[in-house]
């Protein structure tokens, strides 16, 4: 074999192995969206009409909406549905004073500045970005959360469209 043929073969081998690695990486399980507790937004926000801000208190005063402290769950569930296996999980977190490690569904890249407060105070319904969470048991990402998608709305509503509004 000539030198160039050897190089060719080596290059193909290298490429092949990279493709294998790539496929392996791509075929990683899609993100498991199951939560540590089978919490149902439908029951809370839908059937029982609990306001979003009752639990996600940060949404109106901070950039982050936040997840409720275990104490908020316990407030009701010290009395409500104590026999449910999922609620027993909550009570266990409360008794052991452990935080709940939820799986994040809506995530923005680190270089994006997004303030829940500004949007909530601006009258944007939570559902505009998060979908009809009050209708589903398990939340999944409905909106693409891409820059184009953000800008579309900013344009319609006459919101600022400067780079530094969102890029940090």
């Amino acid at each position, binding site marked *: 074999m*000539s030198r*160039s*043929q050897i*190089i*060719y073969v080596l*290059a*193909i081998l*290298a*490429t092949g192995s*990279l*493709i294998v*690695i*790539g*496929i392996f*990486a*791509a075929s*990683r399980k899609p*993100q498991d969206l199951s939560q540590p507790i089978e919490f149902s937004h439908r029951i809370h926000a839908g059937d029982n009409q609990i306001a979003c801000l009752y639990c996600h*208190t*940060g949404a109106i*005063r*901070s*950039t*982050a909406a*936040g*997840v*409720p*402290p*275990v*104490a*908020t769950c316990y407030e009701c569930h010290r009395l409500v549905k104590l026999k449910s296996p999922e609620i027993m999980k909550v009570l266990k*977190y*409360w008794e052991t*004073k*452990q*935080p*709940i*490690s*939820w*799986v*994040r569904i809506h*995530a*923005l*890249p*680190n*270089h994006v*500045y997004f*303030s*829940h*407060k*500004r949007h909530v*105070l601006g009258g944007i319904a939570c559902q505009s970005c998060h979908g009809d969470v009050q209708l589903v048991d398990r939340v999944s990402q409905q909106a693409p959360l891409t820059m184009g998608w953000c800008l579309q709305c900013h344009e319609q509503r006459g919101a600022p469209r*400067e*780079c*530094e509004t969102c*890029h*940090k």
Partner: protein
Amino acid sequence: MTDSLNRRNFLKLVGLSGVASTVGCGTPPSRKLISLVMPSEEIVPGEAIWYATTCRECLSGCGMRVRTREGRVTKVEGNPEHPISQGGLCIRGQASLQGLYNPDRIQSPFRRNANGTIEPLGWAEAESQLADRLSALENTADRNKIVFLSGHNGDTLDRLIRQWMTALHSEHYLIYEPFSLVTIKEANRIAFGRAEVPDYSIAEADYLLSFGADFLETWLSPVGFSRGFAAIRNYREDRRGKIVQVEPRLSLTGANADEWVSLQPGTEMWIALAMARYIVTEGLSVELPPAEIRRLGILLEPYSSNRASSVTQVPEETIERLATEFAGASAGLAIGGGVAVTGDNATATQVAINLLNHVTGRVGQTIRFDRSFQVPDTAGLSALRGLVDSINRGEVEVLFIHHTNPIFNLPPDLGFSAALQKVPLVVSFSSFSDETTDLAHLVLPDHTPLEQWGDFRPAAGVHSLMQPAMNPVFDTRSTGDVLLELAKQMGGDVAEAFQVQTFQDYLKDAWKQTYGEVAGEDFENFWQESLLRGGIWPSRSSGMESQSVDRRARVGLLPQIFDFPFPPAPTKGPAEFFLHAYPSSRYYDGRGANKPWLHEIPDPITNVVWDSWVEVHPETARQLNVVEGDLLHVESAVGHVEAPVYIYEGVRPDTVAIPIGLGHESYGRYAKDRGSNPSVLLPVAADPLSGTQVWSGSKVKISKTGRRSELVRTDGSRTDLDRGFSRIIPLSALTATAVPSEEVHHQEPEHESLSMYPPHDHKDYRWGMAINLSSCTGCGACVAACYAENNVPVVGKELIARGRHMAWIRIERYMENVSATPDIRFSPMMCQQCDNAPCEPVCPVYATMHSSDGLNVQVYNRCVGTRYCSNNCPYKVRTFNWFDYQFPEPLHLQLNPDVSVRSKGIMEKCTFCIQRIREGKDHAKDEGRLVRDGEVVPACAQSCPTQAIVFGNLLDPNSTVSKLADQQHGYRVLEELNTKPAITYLPRIKRI
């Protein structure tokens, strides 16, 4: 297969493999959302929480506010309410974050076995072992063999240690600080019978005569004094004060003075005495009793200007002129300190300065004994020699070492290191492994100051609190808590001496005892308010100041002073040089050497990074035939070091100067084996009157080694080549109607109307800055603040040498003239946020854009790294990420979540702290108004001890920045390029 691998095929293959390797890459945002267990009124995810505390990087005790986000400290700032620092914070205070998050911190307790191996211990085990060991020392005589050696502690911790040692029946509690202020106390005791360090009203002085005191860098209270310095240097009532610095090597403080009196090292006393004599004999003194005048005349008789001139090598006329000026000043002030005044005549020099102040009536005027600094009685070299002797006699059974590193700072000949190895048990509370801790048998790491409770009294009436701003980063424990636990475990009368379980309770009880009356019924409320404020002090508006109007406070000369034996003048052999080892404004006594920011930010005078050097006068360099970077061998009678030459006109030809702080053999990755430690050149000598360590006056021989060690500097040239970057105007220009063109700069007529682009519209804001060069001292606090706020990476010496420094703001230093009237200029340089920004039109991808607020914004994830913008920037303020820079754990915890961490291939620059602007606008919008003047303060402006940087909205004609920017003498750098910068510089005012 006959054809070879042609270019086309090769590219196909490469392209394919590229696709393959990118699949599944990219760092996703965190996929965890962790709840709190209990709701907290305080903690709102996404919002910062601030805690007031006290900086413990030196002895000044500046008030600090600590910003935390989601439970971790991300930034420290000066506390604007604090009377000492008044909102400013120095470079070392800013870098205290890197002490907290230092990757080389001792993370948990351990024991060092006889064979040198390290055995990790749990806290319970470590404490019980130590308690047993202490309990084994049964009788009082044995208990007295316990020694506690510590740096200067806060008040209540100091009290606890004293009480603990007393309960153990030991009398040996020693405080060691390398830079002692005891000489001032001792001299005031000798002269006035007041063993105190008075307050120096620098802000009120119009003539400041400093004998070596580096009051802008390390001496006494640099941040507070910087504010006073700005008051002198700025124009007030048609005048501007004068600062005269008397020292053998022009320090940063000297570089900011109006006059530099270069004298033979160690002869400051002679100048002060000759001035006092001239003032008394010429009848320039204030009214003094005739008997006192007569006796002073006799005491000062030997110190004629003529004799003083021959000893000090300062011209007679200069001494007499200074005396006349000083006596004639309406509010003169003479101070002495710094390493220049740490010879074996240190106390005598301070006594001489006291006499000078006395005869001119400054005591009670600018020197205020009614509000003194709280300075500890530190053990000097004499006391440490005593300790070494007792160790050698076998009189020390257990030695506790707390926050001090004597092996690094003491002259090696004292034998402290050898003695330490003879002590049966050495217990260290150090947070870092350093030269001293490396010899300890048991290491019980303390919290860093940002993680612990405590208090500190910097000055009379000012009592600052320290509170933990976050949970401990590592498995460390506060020394106060450890001592209380040991007492409990030892039982008996030792345990009975303490009623409390934790140091926090001990502190609170101590405050209750002191302030029970002030607090009244509701102590808890008083305590909470004090914590919020950062301590307790008389408010500026309260009547506490006026109660003590008796400034003179009956401070007069003691009769014994007239017999005071002033020592003779120092001498030096012909082939010898004086060694001037001086504290670095970045490393202090060496404790800053483990903080990467302090290495990365250049030294203000030399602009050298990551290194130490030996300063040599150009004439001496010529004689030795050395150039910058040549390694010089510096040898004293007791030791030698090698360091690269830095040629500096600001050091006398008969003197060489080496900064203190580097040359560590331990102390973590950033400090170890870097630079050289001048302490090894020092003889074991103490000032006989105060017992303090002698730093100055030793003699050395220097020789060329023939080897080189390149110094890495950040300055392109020493002067500004008449480009007018940093300007000076005479005072007369301000009072006269027209501005005389005293300095001709490279300037072209303005072409206001000529622009290829239409002007920008600004709706509500155009952000701008005014930088007052009369106030800027070049200290670099702003640079450190910027590193902390904006996640600016540290790149290290090698990359800086290749021009890859990442600082967003730099202090340009121009040595226009180093002489008796020094003209060394400092000016902060950062993105000028031009309205006609040259960077913007050249970006092919619109990554740098003009915002409607007049900012040049940089969109990181749009940037493709062409670097065209940087090439087109005339100010050279854009920096490029050549690599993905690392923040070694746990330094990454300091990163500000409001600012992106930039990756490889991205251009970046100063944003005017856009995250703070955004936050300010957010608050304003909540209240339906515009941002108020002063509501948004960028990190650099916040930290500036002299408030040289003012930020605000240029569209608001009433904003402070608008008023400053409109001043007639303000200028914009490279204005002739028609870049329309948003930063206006106000020239330094020359005193004429």
